[in-house]
């Protein structure tokens, strides 16, 4: 069934408006709606329809390719946005063809070839409603907040369903039903959104136990594994960079320690931001912030950001969604595979939540060990600053950095072994022991993980962060503020470099890969966005020229356009002009009935002998005109026309 008048045009305009292609939408709408007024149609063969379907297929392939090239992660969304344009050749050819419908076999390559093997009837469909739905679906790309999109969808549904309504019930009943549907749907979509978010959170929390980027617990020793890779994971440039300066880039903070693992149970909240501009306001603005720029890749569409302390905002970051928790862990979802982020930060003060009871607790199992350590250091009687100094000095002077994992040895726990026997370990041991020792001394402390940026690359002209630079340190709450407190001996960087050599060739490849990705995401996306549409123009022109040259397009006069009455025949021939009126008033003529027998049947219903006599007289005149002598035809026709004019008026006046 055909869509109502202007339906497709309006829906295309809506699409254009929503996805930011209003002029394109307007153009397509005008072309489609003009089909209703145009007096010509194209007489196309099945092979011509196939060609237009092929154009859509080529456009689809082209869009998929372009989307994958510019932004593989958002390819489905890019595709969704351009769907109405991709399928426009199909709806266009249907609307302008004399047939006005599409053969189903045109859509499948297999059935096109197997025409000679088909024993079933050809099935033709009208794709206008399907196309309208594609436009509506594509409009959802805009992801408009609030109920506006829903309201528009309701309007389009009502408009589209109007012609399908049953005529058995009164109009009021139909309107009531539609209202019920709209209200139920509204509550339903609210419910769906809430359910979806709950499900999404549940999935994310589930993933948090198994996936690296969203991990909210850690294990001692895990960093040791990571450190054996020299893969570059992040590229950063700081505006205050000076040779030799190192930066701690914080990823996650944990506050509960149990069974050699750190846990955190902070819920995430959305960060307000503008997706198009890529600006995210993480914390309230401050004056004179520091700036740093970083590039990193998403893992399975998600990432936990590694950020300097006291992040205020992030700009130029094209992410689908951004969330943070109370301990300033920022994670993002969706976006191009290579993410650029320009971060404004304070550099010192952080926005972490105030200490809670968890930040003071030492696990029962570890308590005797840390009580003994605190006693040995004499931390009970010291001030906060003195404690920090003592602890820092304790680890710096008495401990050594080692990547060797020695387990718990003869001691009760790995930490006891580290503090009293081996006195050597990797950063996790230092960080964990520091946190628990400070807590034992009454200072709130947390365990933080992230990266240490220290390696300057001449090739890239900035700092590069490798996987082996993963680091753990403590966060302490002193003087009403949280600050980083790293007790791992500084020599660890040299040891890492010695034990995990880097490959210049790998770095070179990585650099070229990075440059290529930047070119693709930053320059390529703009190119496709700006000129992509123009690339389709020669494609269409080529097709038109090909069809014209082979003479497959014929322009014919449209006589039987839907929605138009066949006026031509009625004007040309006499009695036929009142046939339609008679059918409406007295019932249609049956296939076997002659005009005379039909009039006789009607006369029994009407009980108007005078009118019936006139009708029979007109029929006689009609027969004489049609089958009588040629020389009398003109005269008869004139009389007949006069008679019929009067008759049609009388008939129309009848109830």
């Amino acid at each position, binding site marked *: *069934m055909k869509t109502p008048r202007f339906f497709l045009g309006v829906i295309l305009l809506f699409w254009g408006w929503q996805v930011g292609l209003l002029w394109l939408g307007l153009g397509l709408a005008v072309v489609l709606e003009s089909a209703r007024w145009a007096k010509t149609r194209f007489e196309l063969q099945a092979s011509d329809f196939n060609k237009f379907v092929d154009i859509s297929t080529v456009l689809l392939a082209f869009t998929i390719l372009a989307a994958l090239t510019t932004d593989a992660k958002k390819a489905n*969304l890019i595709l*969704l946005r351009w769907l109405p344009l991709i399928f426009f050749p199909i709806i266009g050819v249907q609307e302008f063809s004399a047939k006005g419908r599409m053969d189903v076999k045109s859509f499948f390559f297999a059935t096109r070839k197997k025409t*000679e*093997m088909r*024993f*079933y*009837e050809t099935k033709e469909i009208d794709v206008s*409603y*399907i196309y309208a*739905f594609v436009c*509506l*679906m594509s409009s*959802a*790309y*805009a*992801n*408009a907040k609030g109920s506006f*999109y*829903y309201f528009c*969808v*309701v309007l389009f*549904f009502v408009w589209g*369903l109007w012609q*399908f*309504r*049953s*005529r*058995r*019930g009164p109009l009021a*009943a*139909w309107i009531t*039903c*539609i209202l*019920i*549907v*709209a209200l*139920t*749907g*509204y509550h*339903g*979509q609210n*419910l*769906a*959104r809430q359910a*979806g*978010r709950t499900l*999404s959170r549940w999935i994310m929390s589930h993933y948090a136990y198994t996936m690296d980027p969203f991990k909210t617990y850690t294990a001692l020793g895990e960093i040791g594994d990571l450190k054996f890779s020299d893969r570059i994971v992040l590229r950063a440039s700081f505006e205050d960079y000076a040779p030799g300066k190192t930066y701690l880039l914080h990823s996650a903070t944990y506050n509960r320690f149990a069974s050699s693992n750190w846990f955190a149970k902070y819920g995430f909240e959305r960060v307000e931001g503008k997706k198009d501009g890529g600006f995210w306001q993480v914390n309230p603005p401050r004056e004179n912030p520091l700036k740093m720029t970083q590039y990193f890749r998403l893992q399975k569409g998600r990432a936990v950001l590694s950020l300097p302390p006291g992040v205020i905002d992030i700009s130029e970051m094209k992410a*689908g*969604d951004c969330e943070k928790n109370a301990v300033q862990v920022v994670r993002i*979802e*969706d976006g191009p595979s290579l993410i650029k982020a320009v971060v404004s930060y304070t550099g010192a003060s952080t926005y972490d939540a105030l200490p809670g009871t968890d930040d003071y607790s030492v696990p029962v199992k570890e308590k005797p060990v840390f009580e003994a350590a605190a006693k040995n250091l004499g931390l009970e009687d010291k001030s906060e600053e003195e404690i920090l100094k003592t602890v820092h000095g304790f680890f710096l002077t008495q401990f050594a950095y080692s990547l060797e994992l020695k387990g718990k040895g003869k001691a009760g726990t790995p930490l006891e072994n580290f503090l009293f026997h081996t006195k050597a370990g990797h950063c996790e041991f230092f960080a964990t022991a520091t946190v628990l020792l400070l807590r034992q001394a009454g200072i709130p402390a947390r365990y933080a993980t992230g990266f240490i940026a220290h390696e300057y690359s001449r090739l890239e002209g900035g700092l590069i962060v490798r996987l082996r630079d993963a680091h753990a340190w403590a966060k302490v709450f002193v003087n009403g503020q949280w600050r980083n407190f790293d007790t791992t001996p500084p020599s660890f960087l040299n040891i890492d470099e010695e034990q995990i050599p880097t490959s210049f060739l790998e770095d070179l490849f990585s650099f070229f890969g990075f440059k290529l990705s930047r070119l693709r995401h930053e320059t390529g996306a703009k190119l496709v966005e700006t000129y992509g549409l123009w690339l389709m123009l020669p494609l269409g022109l080529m097709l038109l020229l090909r069809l014209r040259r082979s003479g497959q397009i014929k322009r014919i006069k449209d006589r039987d356009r839907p929605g138009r009455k066949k006026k031509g025949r009625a004007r040309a021939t006499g009695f036929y002009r009142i046939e339609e009126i008679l059918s409406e008033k007295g*019932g*249609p003529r*049956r*296939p076997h009935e002659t005009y005379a027998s039909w009039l006789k049947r009607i006369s029994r219903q009407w009980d108007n002998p005078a009118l019936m006599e006139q009708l029979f007289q007109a029929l006689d005149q009609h027969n004489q005109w049609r089958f009588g002598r040629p020389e009398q035809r003109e005269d008869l026709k004139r009389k007949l026309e006069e008679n019929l004019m009067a008759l049609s008026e009388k008939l129309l006046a009848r109830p």
Partner: protein
Amino acid sequence: MMMPRFLYRSYWLLHRVSFRVKRHVTPAGAMMTAVFCITALFGLNMYKTTLYQVMALSLSLLLVSAVLSLMPFRPRLRLRHILPVYGTVGEKSVYSIEITNLGQKPERGIILYEDPADPRPDLNTLLTRKEPYEHLRNAWDRKTLYYRWAWLVLKSGKARLRPIILPDLPPGETLSIAADFTPNYRGYLHFTGVTLARPDILGLFMRNFRIQKTEKLLVLPRRYALDPPELTSSRQYHPGGVNLASSIGNSDEFMSLRYYRPGDPLHHIHWRTFARTGELVIKEFEDEFFVRYALVLDTFVPPERERVFEEAVSIAASYIASMDPHDAILDLVLGSHAMDAFSSGRGLGGSEKMLEILSCVESCPDKTVLELKPVLESGLKKISGAIIIFSGWSRDHEEICRIIHEALVPAFVIALAEDARQKETIVRETGGSPYPVRVVQIGAVPEELSIP
């Protein structure tokens, strides 16, 4: 066996489900269901798009509509089908339905579905019959038997019956509605009743009301306007036919002498009288008027030559329909499960009986044309001419021609070819035939068999 049985049960069930869905869901409803499924599939990520809003609205529409469609529907209508006796393959059959509203309320927006007999084949038929294009299908299609199932269902269903949207029916009034369908296959089309469907107020789902009514219609094979072939033994001198014939006798019985008239056969000239008088005088024999023809139809066609078989049946039906039943007796000789010969004509059943037989005839792929030999040998003594329609050409066909020729029966032989290449081959091969063979390409029968 396990697999085909499982496939059969699956197709059987699927057909039933699809039939019921079509009767309970309007096209708009089907579209809305598709909208719901697509948006549910692609709208799951609520952070990316607002498709979930379309999903919620479409689900709400479907639910409300489904609930509304449960409202009772018991129309008080009387229906009468006025079906034609015969339909023809490929030609529109027009019929009418008279509907009377016996209730107190007007009936509006009702859709009428004709209920044909269940077209699903049984397991044995599915396993033994082959569809015409099976030899071209790939291994998977052949294994899954889907096309075979679809073909059997279509063949058994005969025609696609479209739903009819009834006009408004005021209480107590009778309306006559014209409807039509185009049969695709020959045979009996059985109707078991009609289903009246009432869409709900939103127009997505329907509630049904079934009226049982048994009717049937015979779909005849496609027929062409062919002239009957001129067989030399046919009647020539009794333009009035049997009714005006003055006497009855055998054709070789001498009756009298008369002057020559243009068109008389030269071998009947009485040369002695010509020698004596110099005038052409002809021997007049008792004219044969009780002509008995045989129409031999080759039904021994493999499934992949289904189109050829249908064309052969159409040609046979065309000759039967064009012959005057008062002047001749026609024996239809064909092989189905057993070899049969049916007679029609003067004093016997009319040609419509023959057409009925042809409408229901099936091919016999497991036998050869030589199976007709015993029937022909016993019947050839009685017949004075034969029309033989072969679906191809082989030594067996040549043998059949030889048998008929030895009985001195004049015959008009047609051999059908699928395409131009096969036609050329058959033309070459029929060189040794005792009769000239008309090789006809399917799809061009009227052009090739009509006498100009």
